[in-house]
């Protein structure tokens, strides 16, 4: 069956409503239950698939398979406590569920209606069991917009997506709105690109829509090269349809009829979920020819990356899509003017797309009411490192680091002291104790010497040596620099070598001074964003942890022997 109008979509929505009614607490009449099992990468790695099989077998043997459905969802965000199982409509949240716990869940909870006490989450501060998701400090300050369907619906079932209002935004846009109106809503919402740069999405769409060309493209950047960030893959794994729907809306707005998802080959689970979603979308006609009975045609294909961080940069990504080495180009021309095969191309990030359908259905004003003056909406962060609650958190812009790390993240494990948090991935910087109360948005992060980047947040404790951390990042960028430009190719290598010399205790003050100078040189002269930002961890750690650099050279006097070496310019003064 193909959906030809909003009415037909609505009919399907009503028919499918029953599938998720229990979960949304809209159905109080039946005795049925839904067992939601996390199928995200973290829980998947912890054998959540096997748990599903056991649950299903147990239910079947008791003849309860009809009443009690086991549903594999996307990531709940609380990956530290995985595998996670939620039982609806009871609203009970079980954590760290092992293979042998499946039996207890069926026998105790499902059959006897008694909660399995030991699987409930225990609040580490209050030492009390907490049974619902809403009561957990991890979720209290979160606001799930981009992640709204992750952990709620089965990502492999388009009907569940339609049941929560999926594809309505696309239907509305195509049948009731002009292209300019769609762009206007996105502009008014204040949505800025979540891929790192924070460029206003509506403006990018507008620029692309104004280009005169028969052929245009829309690309979803699912490369996610930042090591330690996994929000994009989680969205694709947990809610692929929202990205597909948003791409179709964007394509309509800019006048494209072809879309590409550029995704890394190392993300097999995301690829498989996306492939399934695309097939279902085509079957229902929300992709393909004459969508919603209009003259709008659109389809999406996948292109696989092959493990190069620089391919996340949009011009490099386009080269890679064309089957070439993924080297960046000079900008301008920007992809919006001249992109894939020379045609105007709009490149947006996965999380950016995930926000679009809600903006269309709930309105620009609603979205703009969340966040700060210049950064609207929410941001998903991948919270990891030395923190109690590792996971994906989505919070309104403007929240402080202290709230994320200590309230949501539950603080630093093993009673250690907080030292720093690195944001913005390898190209960001560290934020220390002093910055903990900074409200998080694009501009304030730049002000305190870091950046939003894709949203990786790595917490470090007193045991971490910051020179080592800087060296770790430099090794990464050195490996990943494509080598196209000299400052990038040689500069990052020399920076790494200098850091290595320092950490092996062989450096002098002159080396530290040279390191500092070279850091600025690479920053100022590299061709693309990768190496322009590569020295940031060095600059930022030198600024905040200068004594740790000094500690490595403490007893080393100036090589010429005329006493202590005086650095030429104090770090932090020049920028």
């Amino acid at each position, binding site marked *: 069956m193909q959906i030809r109008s909003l009415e037909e979509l609505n009919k399907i929505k009503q028919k499918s409503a029953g599938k998720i009614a229990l979960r949304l607490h809209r159905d109080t009449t039946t005795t049925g239950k839904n067992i939601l099992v996390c199928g995200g990468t*973290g829980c998947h*790695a912890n054998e959540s698939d096997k748990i599903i099989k056991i649950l299903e077998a147990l239910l079947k043997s008791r003849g309860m398979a009809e009443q009690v459905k086991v549903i594999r969802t996307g990531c709940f965000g609380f990956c530290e406590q995985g595998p996670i199982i939620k039982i609806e409509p009871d609203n009970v949240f079980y954590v760290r569920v092992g293979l042998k716990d499946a039996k207890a869940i069926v026998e105790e909870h499902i059959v006897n209606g008694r909660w399995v006490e030991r699987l409930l989450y225990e609040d580490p501060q209050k030492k009390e069991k907490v049974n619902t998701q809403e009561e957990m400090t991890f979720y209290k300050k979160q606001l799930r917009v981009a992640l709204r369907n992750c952990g709620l619906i089965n990502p492999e079932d388009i009907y569940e997506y339609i049941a929560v209002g999926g594809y309505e935004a696309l239907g509305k846009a195509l049948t009731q709105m002009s292209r300019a109106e769609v762009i206007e809503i996105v502009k008014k919402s204040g949505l800025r690109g979540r891929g790192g740069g924070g460029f206003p999405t509506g403006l990018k769409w507008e620029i692309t829509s104004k280009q005169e060309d028969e052929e245009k493209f829309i690309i979803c950047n699912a490369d996610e090269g930042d*090591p330690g960030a996994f929000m994009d893959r*989680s969205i694709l794994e947990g809610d692929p349809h929202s990205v597909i729907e948003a791409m179709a809306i964007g394509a309509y707005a800019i006048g494209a009829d072809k879309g590409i998802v550029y995704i890394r080959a190392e993300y097999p689970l995301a690829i498989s979920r996306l492939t399934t979603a695309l097939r279902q979308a085509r079957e229902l006609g929300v992709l393909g020819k004459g969508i919603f009975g209009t003259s709008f045609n659109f389809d999406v294909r996948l292109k696989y990356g*092959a493990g190069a961080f620089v391919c996340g940069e949009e011009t490099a990504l386009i080269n890679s899509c064309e*089957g070439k080495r993924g080297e960046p180009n000079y900008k301008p021309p920007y992809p919006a003017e001249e992109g894939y095969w020379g045609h105007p191309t709009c490149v947006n990030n996965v999380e950016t797309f995930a926000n679009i359908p809600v903006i269309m259905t709930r309105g620009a004003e609603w979205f703009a009411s969340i966040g700060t003056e210049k950064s609207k909406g929410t941001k998903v962060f991948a919270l990891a490192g030395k923190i109690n609650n590792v996971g994906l958190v989505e919070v309104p812009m403007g929240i402080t680091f202290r709230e994320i790390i200590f309230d949501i993240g539950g603080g630093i494990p093993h009673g250690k002291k907080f030292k720093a948090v690195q944001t913005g991935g390898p190209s960001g910087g560290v934020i220390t104790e002093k910055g903990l109360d900074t409200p998080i948005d694009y501009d304030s992060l730049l002000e305190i010497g870091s950046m939003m980047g894709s949203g990786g947040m790595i917490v470090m404790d007193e045991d971490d040596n910051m020179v080592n951390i800087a060296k*770790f990042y430099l090794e990464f960028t050195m490996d990943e620099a494509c080598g196209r430009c000299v400052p990038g190719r040689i500069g990052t290598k020399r920076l790494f070598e200098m850091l290595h010399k320092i950490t092996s205790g062989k450096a002098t003050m002159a080396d530290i001074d040279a390191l500092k100078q070279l850091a600025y040189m690479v920053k100022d002269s590299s061709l693309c964003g990768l190496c322009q930002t590569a020295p940031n961890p060095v600059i930022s750690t030198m600024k905040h942890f200068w004594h740790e650099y000094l500690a490595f050279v403490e007893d080393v006097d100036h090589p010429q022997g005329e006493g202590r070496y005086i650095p030429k310019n104090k770090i932090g003064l020049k920028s």
Partner: protein
Amino acid sequence: MTKPQEIDVMEPVEQEFPKEKYDELESFINSLETTKGALIEILHKAQHIFGYLPRDVQLFIARKLGIPGAEVYGVVSFYSYFTTKPSGKHTISVCMGTACFVRGADKIVEKFKERLGIESNETTEDGLFTIKDVRCIGACGLAPVVMVDDKVYGRVKVEDVDDIINIYRRKGAEVCR
């Protein structure tokens, strides 16, 4: 002065692949709507079929697409996912993403290297193991993470390294028997 061994280095003797593998690759290429821009896609497929991308396979693709071999090699060497060396029976991927690093992944990879006597991207002499560094497999909650083939081991400690190796050594021995 030129010794035969040195010529060997120039012209590596490569494994001969059965014709069916080439046929499979060729029919994949023929099935594409257009080969324009499809080189990476084709290389993915080829690596899937052959396990790696030896010189002969690269040249085969170059001839088939009518492009210079250097262009194919240029792309193969650019991307870390493509490999020109066969890998061992089991691939040990140690996550070197930041989350795993700050929880001690560097010590784990060192231990694997020490125990197996190889560096990253090398294969043990018996062909059983290859070590690879990977960046964030998305299970940061389990950091540090080691993946052997498709199986993920989370919260790995240095002491666990021997156990992990032994699981696969034993598996290898079972097959031989």
